[in-house]
């Protein structure tokens, strides 16, 4: 083993310069596959453990290197690009120019579907990008197979539809209708009516946890596990009505944008928000998350678009000029912003992963009457879906989609048997809602000593509020034979509220340990004269 590594070292020294450059590229790729720094083994005193961990670290290095080489040589497809020469700018390139240069199969992805009667359309794609559900405000729901451009099912629910979302695959989708949210099967049958949530404004699905998250018209956040139907959490945000809700795919937290300009992030196991950020001076109109989980884009009504780094919760960049009603990030990091009938695509012009600089990449303006309702990039394709007031369209954006899919993660060419198997595996790997946290890499790491996480003050107060509300809203049994006096009822209710409050001890008294006070230890002047004989004589 040692001889071969020596040989490798020797050959590496005499590589030509081109090979050495590609070595640098390989280094960055290897870093990506190593997923962070290795453990510091110098501090270990246990020799057996040290040797075991050292050999494991070596294995990790080897596997990361192999994965980097596979990425370089063995992946079947390459990403799309748009390169202009000379003085020509990328944002002046129109869709018609693109259609002339590109092959037939791709140009089939540029189209406009005009459905003027059914109101602005909202879209959602499945994880593999193969199926799309479009929901028009006036009640039109359409399930489309994008690869064969085949309409699988369309139904008219005859009610306002405010949002649509797919569940774990194309067999189930949820629609937020006038009074309640409903879950439909693939053939359009209504499977469930989700009455507990009330009138829902936005619906999103958390894939790894099988949780359907929604925010309703009174600003309440609901999480429901769709495998057994139980409501995991219903949280009163206390910030009023909002219909801006997005899920961060990296860690599963839900972000709400409020009318005061704050963006709050929530997890189902706590009643208080994880993070509250003051993003804009006015109301937040849209929020979007980069797939790597570190970047968030928010747009406010004051016509600014801000890019935030979520690791430090700092603003990286501000883009002035337009009020983006809808935002979306693509798999490769392009940001699409839609205002009125104009779509602007921004790309990261700096190559490094640490600094980001978003600048104009492409534009697309539609016919003046088409007001854009929702933008969403289609996964694994260089296509963006636009839902607008006159139907939906799709245009080509080179370089936006991930070129190589993994069949075990999301397969656009799935057969029904593969889909069934995948569903079973997804269910086996379903994560409990407690795993949603800001930094998901903490799972599996050893936590130092602390047995139980102490909740913060804000969390305790929020829990207290909820408990008091629950106590107040319990219905007392109606007693007969003269035992149902109003005075007794009010007394009993007060008692229940007091009990609920008692489970939360007062916060301020933790620091000073209450010492038992002996009679007469402080100034004897406190004691009345008759008790002075009991004062302690020091």
């Amino acid at each position, binding site marked *: 083993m040692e001889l071969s590594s020596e040989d490798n070292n020797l050959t590496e020294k005499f590589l030509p310069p081109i090979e050495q450059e590609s070595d640098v590229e390989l280094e960055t790729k290897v870093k990506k596959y190593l997923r962070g720094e290795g453990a510091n083994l110098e501090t270990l005193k246990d020799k057996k453990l040290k040797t075991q961990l050292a050999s494991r670290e070596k294995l990790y290095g080897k596997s990361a290197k192999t994965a980097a080489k596979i990425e370089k040589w063995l992946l079947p497809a390459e990403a799309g690009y748009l*390169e202009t020469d000379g003085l020509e700018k990328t944002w002046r390139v129109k869709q018609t120019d693109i259609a002339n240069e590109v092959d037939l199969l791709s140009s089939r992805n540029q189209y406009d579907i005009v459905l003027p009667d059914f109101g602005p359309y909202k879209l959602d794609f499945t994880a593999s990008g193969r199926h799309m559900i479009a929901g028009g405000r006036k009640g039109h729901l359409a399930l489309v197979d994008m690869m064969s451009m085949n309409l699988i099912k369309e139904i008219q629910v005859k009610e306002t539809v405010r949002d649509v979302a797919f569940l774990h695959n194309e067999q189930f989708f949820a629609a937020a209708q006038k009074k309640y949210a409903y879950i439909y099967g693939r053939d359009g049958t209504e499977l469930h009516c989700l009455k507990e949530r009330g009138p829902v404004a936005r619906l999103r699905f958390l894939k790894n946890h099988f949780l359907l998250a929604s925010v309703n018209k009174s600003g309440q956040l609901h999480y429901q596990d769709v495998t057994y139907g139980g409501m995991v959490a219903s949280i009163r945000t206390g910030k009023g009505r909002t219909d801006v809700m997005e899920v961060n795919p990296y860690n599963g937290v839900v972000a709400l944008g409020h009318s005061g300009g704050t963006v709050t992030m929530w997890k189902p196991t706590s009643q208080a928000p994880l993070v509250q950020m003051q993003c804009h001076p006015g109301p937040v109109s849209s929020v979007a998350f980069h797939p790597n989980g570190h970047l968030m884009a928010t747009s406010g009504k004051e016509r600014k678009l801000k890019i935030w780094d979520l690791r430090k919760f700092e603003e990286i960049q501000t883009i002035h000029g337009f009020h983006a009603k809808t935002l979306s990030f693509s798999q490769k990091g392009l940001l699409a912003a839609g205002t009125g009938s104009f779509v602007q695509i921004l790309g990261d012009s700096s190559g490094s992963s640490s600094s980001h600089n978003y600048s104009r990449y492409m534009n697309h303006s539609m016919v003046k009457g088409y007001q854009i309702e929702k933008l969403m990039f289609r996964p694994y394709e260089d296509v963006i879906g636009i839902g607008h007031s006159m139907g939906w369209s799709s245009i080509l954006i*080179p370089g936006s989609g991930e070129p190589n899919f993994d069949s075990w993660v999301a397969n656009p060419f799935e057969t029904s048997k593969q889909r069934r198997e995948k569903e079973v595996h997804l269910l086996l790997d379903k994560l409990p809602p407690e795993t949603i946290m800001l930094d998901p890499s903490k799972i599996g790491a050893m936590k130092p000593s602390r047995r139980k996480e102490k909740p913060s003050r804000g969390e305790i107060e929020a829990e207290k509020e909820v408990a008091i509300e629950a106590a107040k809203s319990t219905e007392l049994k109606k007693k007969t034979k003269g035992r149902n006096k109003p005075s007794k009822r009010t007394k009993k209710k007060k008692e229940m509220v007091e009990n609920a409050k008692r489970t939360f001890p007062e916060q301020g008294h933790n620091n000073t340990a209450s010492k038992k006070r002996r009679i007469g230890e402080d100034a004897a002047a406190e004691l009345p004269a008759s008790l002075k004989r009991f004062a302690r004589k020091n």
Partner: protein
Amino acid sequence: MKIKTLSRPVDEYTRERSQDLQVVFHNFDPSLRPMEKAVEYKRALTAAKLEKIFARPFVGAMDGHRDGVSCMAKNPNYLKGIFSASMDGDIRLWDISSRRTVCQFPGHQGAVRGLTVSTDGNVLVSCGTDCTVRLWKVPRPTLEDSSVSSENFIEPAAEYVWKNAFWAVDHQFEGELFATAGAQLEIWNHNRASPVQSFQWGTDSVISVRFNPGEPDILATSASDRSITIYDLRMSSAARRIIMMTKTNSIAWNPMEPMNLTAANEDGSCYSFDGRKMDEAKCVHKDHVSAVMDIDFSPTGREFVTGSYDRSVRIFPYNGGHSREIYHTKRMQRVFCVKYSCDATYVLSGSDDTNLRLWKAKASEQLGVILPREQKKHEYNEAVKNRYKHLPEVKRIVRHRHLPKPIYKALGIIRTVNDSKRRKEDRRRAHSAPGTIVTKPLRQRRIIKEVE
């Protein structure tokens, strides 16, 4: 202007004919897999739970003896057979796959104390308390023998009477000699009626003997004066000797590292020694509550199985201080002998209740032919469980074993006793001049001295 967009022609990404395998593409980029660590943890938890669900280690019991089983011997050339002997002189050859007796070797008048097979598998040597050593010719298993209906009774090929009762016997590897343990250590040849060589030290009897698999001339013995001695046949006296605090019931050499031996002691622990340097134990394996009666190594050299007076069988890793597995049954009484099968899959235990029991070495192992996909899934489950086995939820499931009540209570008492001893020791140290109280490490504490 150069433009390229992604386009995937369907025939490149799907299979050509229906008899082909499905086309699978891989992209190992971590950004395609959010929350991969949480998913892996969930899989580790599921794997730990599945392992417990499939853990059914007891395969079967072999019934036939009329008195407690005192010793067993395995034939290195024939995987399916095991010899066992009981306290009333009954020696049987069992067929493990059908769990029936193939033939019996009657003859001994008292308890049979030692059984061993020569390396070529032809000669079975037995010794007992009736002061005799008998040699038997092992019947060759033919194709007809697979359905065993008739029980054969075999006559001994040779019978040697000697002066004192014997306690153990072991055969040399690749040689013609075998050693018996009795009042002295005696070395015999197949053809001679009296021993060719004998070793004596003091007046105490030798209770167990074991030849080294790597060096055919070296053997280890343990005597009732609490000593472990290593002899070399080419020399006239002992090579190494240590005296411990309690007597050793049985010794086993590691087949993969023949310089290491492990001794099963009367105080409930097993001590692993390096044969070249016996003043300190390399590892102390503690988990049994009562005396450890027998010990046998797996052919991989990575594990050994012990049977103890506390009615349980434990499997230990060769370098680990605590057992990986414990097997017990309400019906199994004091375990006197254990053997690890030669394919490292099964463990056999012979106990006081006249039964030989067959257990799986890995309790949740799927026996039989395993498809390659199944094999990969088993390996993945094993690997992901080992990655997270130190975390509390997974650890609790992996570690969980049901212990019989007497053992559970005894372990609690032992823990209390050790805690109080340690506390007393700490207080003594705290109240005396620093450096006066020196604790010997456990590896050396149980060894009194090395002699010679």
